């Protein structure tokens, strides 16, 4: 465990040395500030459009940070020729993969905390009430979603040749699942065999990332999701993280390090 945390610590330090997070955070703040300054029929209490824009920017920023940070981890080590010396130390390949994953996931968590604190302040400044339970669930579900995506991008970084191609594929897959994942079974009904079976199989095998998108609940002040359903969703996320990480370890075991 000590080795895993050591590798994770290096990844987190790398995140705050790089400028990605700061740039995305400032862009989010500036855009939200400009949108908040728009006068809509002289009504200062209109807030939901602002919450929607803010959450959309937070989602985009977090996806960019999670995918790009993870996708370059192992390829960068190989390119800089630091992978071999790293593995020469008492550090197994499995520990390296898990350390990289944990570092990226924790780094995503830290950025999420910053983003959601800003979001909470923005919402409270207009709404004058604070749905602590709803916001906590939103950040928790969002973080576990980023866990699945981080694990997927880590596996992709070992399968695909370049970080750029891995990032692009990850973005396409994530956006595709978010947009159509929930409806793949409905699409399958309209198709003929054997494509129908394939699409149906895809529906049940894909990680349903839309479970973790509770933006509409937060924006429109719906009551928080029942705790048992949140717990099940977190378990579902842990299962997919484990699947992708086992896949990454298996691929990395046979991968040449130089």
């Amino acid at each position: 465990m000590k080795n895993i945390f050591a590798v994770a610590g290096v990844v987190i330090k790398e995140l705050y040395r790089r400028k990605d997070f700061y740039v995305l955070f400032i862009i989010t703040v500036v855009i939200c500030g400009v949108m908040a300054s728009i006068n809509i029929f002289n009504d200062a209490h209109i807030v939901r459009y602002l919450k929607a824009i803010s959450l959309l920017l937070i989602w985009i920023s977090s996806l960019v940070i999670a995918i790009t940070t993870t996708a370059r981890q192992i390829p960068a080590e190989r390119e800089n020729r630091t992978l071999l010396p790293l593995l020469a130390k008492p550090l197994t390949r499995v520990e390296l993969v898990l350390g990289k994953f944990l570092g990226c996931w924790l780094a995503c968590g830290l950025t999420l905390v910053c983003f959601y604190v800003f979001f909470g302040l923005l919402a409270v400044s207009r709404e004058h009430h604070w749905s602590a339970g709803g916001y906590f669930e939103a950040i928790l579900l969002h973080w576990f979603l980023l866990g699945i995506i981080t694990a997927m991008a880590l596996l992709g970084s070992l399968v695909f040749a370049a970080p750029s191609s891995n990032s692009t594929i990850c973005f396409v897959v994530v956006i595709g699942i978010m947009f159509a994942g929930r409806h793949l079974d409905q699409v399958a009904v309209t198709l003929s065999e054997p494509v129908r079976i394939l699409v149906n199989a895809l529906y049940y095998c894909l990680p349903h990332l839309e479970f973790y998108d509770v933006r509409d609940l937060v924006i429109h002040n719906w009551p928080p999701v029942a705790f048992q359903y949140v717990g099940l969703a977190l378990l579902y996320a842990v299962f997919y993280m484990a699947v992708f990480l086992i896949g990454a370890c298996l691929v990395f075991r046979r991968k040449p390090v130089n």
Partner: protein
Amino acid sequence: MTAPRPQILLLVALLVACFGLAARLGPQFQAWPGSRNTGDILNVVLGESRRLFAKSAFAEADKYYHAGYYPTMFDDNTAFQTAHMAADTGAVKSQNQGDEQGFLGQPRNWLDAFGRNFMPNRHTHLDEGGADDLGDSEDVREILPWMKLSADLDPDNVETYTVTAYWLRQRMHNVPEAEAVLHEGLRNCPESPELFFELGRLYFEYYHDRDRSRNVWEHGVRLWLKLDPQVRLGHQPIRDLVGDWVNRPTNLVPAQQANPLCMEQLCTHLSKLEEQADHLPQAIEWLAAAKKVAVQPGSIQQWMDTLNYKLGQELNPVLKPLF
């Protein structure tokens, strides 16, 4: 002293040519009907495609009206053909048919059933309490940014102005802003009877100004009649025009068939106004016009019978000494 290099001379010549060409083409480009230079930033960026985005903004406003409970392109949206926020104003005829409460249907499988816990899953309207059943009717303000965006993207869509003005005055009690929205609509669509109807309601219900509302509604009726190119308006008084129209056989042109509700509402409101002013014969005349386009002419006839009875009661003391 060295001679200037030929490249510099060529560059200067090119700059002069560019300037001359720009000065020559500039005015022509400004005058070209396809130029985007005259509009705002949305017009410059999106051109005519902005009208497509205007529909999306209008649909987004309706989604906000439902606190996020709204069908996607994959769901059964027969109950959402007409935006509920527009239908609830009473100014638009609803074409919704399906089940608005449960457009999602029964859960298709365990993943679908589980996923429904993480999204809005109950039909609600913002003016009826919203998602937490605690919101007041003023929460409907949340649709306004999208309505404003929709109006900016498609200034020729009358429905956007009427719906915005209705919610502003009815729920937000922001009458000056509602009036401003309607005037902006009239600048862009000066021939719209719907906008005059909405403006008349505002004058009648909030400013209690009968004369202005009568003028505005009568102008609305004139514009609605004008939709039929065969009707010669001239300077004839509006009541004569309507009288002629009532006596003619019913033959509405497609533009009138598309919106008989507007004419019905204009006439019934004018009738109500005249009734309040104790002008019962005029009130009955307006009801006769409303009956011609009414969906339920029976109820209009009942109203007319009531007014005829009241008129008879009023005339009785005058006529009695004659017998």
